[in-house]
């Protein structure tokens, strides 16, 4: 790895922050590799924006240290960090035109007009805003303003780019286009991206790694697939995608898996690391791993459920069942496929729900 690429590593060690005695970040560690696209995912008030502002230097942590590219920047002001941040409000300067906005940081760095011009043109092309250099911010759409904010950061060629809820103000179609665009730009420039979002789809589809935050802590950090398929606890399982929970007691535990008694049913779980026999646990099953009206014996685990309601989403149907103990259980069915009777089911019907042992995750406390 070249030294230029290594400049993009971010290491947080024991970083903590509180406002007015209210802890916002509990001591937390996080390492982001150079060139990585990391998403900080969490609900409002979980501390994700504060974490981003600490990396940018706009907040000073109460404890812990921040290293960027191996250099300790814990107490360095924002203008001495190789980091740029795109604000949720974009903060495009209203008194400057597009070119002057993009060139602002270059001017502050003391570049000559000719050098600035070349770089601004490069940045305009990168975000596909050629020809709008002389526009005033109030003449731009929300999506264009966002591109100006992005170009203004990228033109500085930062080692790390921080993005605070960049899509929150965009409508849905534009949001998906910009998500693809951001991933493209990240591949092109190879900069480390740290994106703050509360939108799990955004985090999953864009990032190399997702860090799920709750109440000032990072509760799980890993590739999107791992976070989705092996959630660390109930919070992660519920925050990332939809999930069914079953409460039970472990009957038998082996290195190959375990058997868990959940009321009248017994659920087999594949994989090592199960808790010992006799302990209570929570099982998580994703709705899309559940087969509706499964033929008997086709799946290792079978439940009986009564159809309570269905909701049609176009590309899929979500069916909600009630189990014998009254708890909810969801399954998703592809809407187009003539799936095992799915759409033809009537509410009140009793159906067999099947899922495999490897579809079940035993959650930690």
């Amino acid at each position, binding site marked *: 790895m070249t030294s230029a690429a290594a400049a993009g590593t971010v290491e947080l060690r024991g970083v903590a922050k509180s406002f007015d005695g209210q802890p916002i970040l509990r001591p937390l560690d996080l390492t982001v590799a150079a060139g990585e696209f990391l998403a900080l995912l969490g609900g409002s008030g979980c501390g994700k*924006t504060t974490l981003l502002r600490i990396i940018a230097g706009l907040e000073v942590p109460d404890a812990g240290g921040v290293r960027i590219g191996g250099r300790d920047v814990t107490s360095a*002001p924002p203008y001495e960090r190789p980091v740029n941040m795109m604000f949720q409000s974009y903060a495009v300067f209203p008194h400057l035109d597009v070119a002057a906005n993009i060139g602002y940081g270059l001017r*502050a760095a003391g570049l000559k007009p000719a050098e600035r011009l070349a770089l601004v043109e490069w940045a305009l092309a990168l975000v596909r805003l050629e020809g709008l250099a002389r526009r005033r911010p109030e003449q731009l759409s929300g999506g264009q303003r966002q591109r100006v904010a992005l170009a203004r950061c990228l033109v500085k060629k930062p080692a790390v780019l921080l993005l605070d809820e960049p899509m929150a103000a965009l409508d849905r179609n534009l949001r998906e286009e910009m998500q693809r665009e951001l991933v493209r730009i990240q591949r092109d420039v190879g900069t480390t991206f740290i994106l703050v979002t509360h939108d799990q789809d955004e985090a999953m589809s864009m990032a190399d790694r997702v860090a799920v935050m709750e109440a000032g802590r990072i509760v799980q950090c890993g590739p999107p697939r791992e976070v989705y398929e092996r959630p660390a606890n109930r919070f992660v399982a519920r925050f990332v995608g939809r999930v069914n929970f079953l409460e039970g007691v472990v009957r038998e535990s082996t290195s190959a898996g375990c058997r868990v008694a959940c009321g009248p049913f017994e659920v087999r779980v594949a994989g090592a690391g199960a808790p010992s026999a006799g302990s209570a646990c929570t099982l998580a099953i994703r709705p899309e791993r559940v087969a509706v009206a499964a033929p008997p014996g086709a799946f290792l685990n079978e439940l009986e459920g009564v159809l309570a309601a269905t909701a049609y989403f176009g590309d899929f149907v979500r069916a909600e069942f009630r189990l014998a103990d009254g708890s909810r259980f969801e399954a998703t069915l592809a809407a187009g496929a003539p799936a095992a009777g799915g759409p033809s089911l009537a509410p009140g019907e009793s159906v067999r729900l099947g899922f495999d042992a490897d579809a079940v995750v035993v959650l930690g406390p």
Partner: protein
Amino acid sequence: MAAGARWRSFSLAGGFAFLYVPILWIIVYSFSAATVVGVWKGFSWRWYAGLLDNEDFRLAAERSLLLAVVAATLATALGTLAGYALARGPRVVGRRPLAVLLGVPLFVPEILVGFSLLLLFVALESVLGVPVGKGLVPLVAAHATLGLPVVASVVYARLAGTDRHYEEAALDLGARPPRVFLTVTLPLLRPALASGWMLAFTLSFDDVVTSSFLAGPSATTLPLFVYSSIRIGVTPEINAVGTLIVVTVAACVVIAMLRGRLAAQARLPPARDAGPQ
């Protein structure tokens, strides 16, 4: 209903008449050819023409304009720093009391302001050994004192309603705090600075009380010229002077208000609570 509406229009008209008839009376009679105040003898510019030849008037008017421009500029510079410190400074304990204290000159009787400043400048005179007790220098200082709280509160209000993200973005893009202030904060404040300057100009231009303590014989301002003239006897010339003062001040106030409204229309995104997320 109809009676109520009539009563409301009547009271509105009465209120405005109370406010404006005396001023209109002065303006109308400033164009009268009669040599006695309050007598109409046909339209004439003679009093305005006469003013042009009046050396005392010309000097007082020039002095007042110069004084108002310098004092308003000084008040704007100092008031902007005060308003900026209050809105963007560190969250120290006692910032709120400081904001209230800054407004004290607005509600301390002007006669006290004038008197205390006179004592201060006389004391300074004996310390410095330079005659600064009366004249233009103390007048500039006094009038800047009158304008400073007004500018500070206009600037404070504007900054409190402006997203901090602009300044944070500038810092993040590599600009040091002085550059951020000059290239981001001040341009964002431009409408507030313009209206604050106009208001400070107005306060200085029509001030009598403070000036009467500090002006001295060598630095008569336009309002003091009017005041001393009518003690000798009211002439229609004074009507013309009054009309000119009203027009100047009204122009400033209207411009200040228009700038304020334009600023409100081109409203920036509302300030987001910078609290933790």
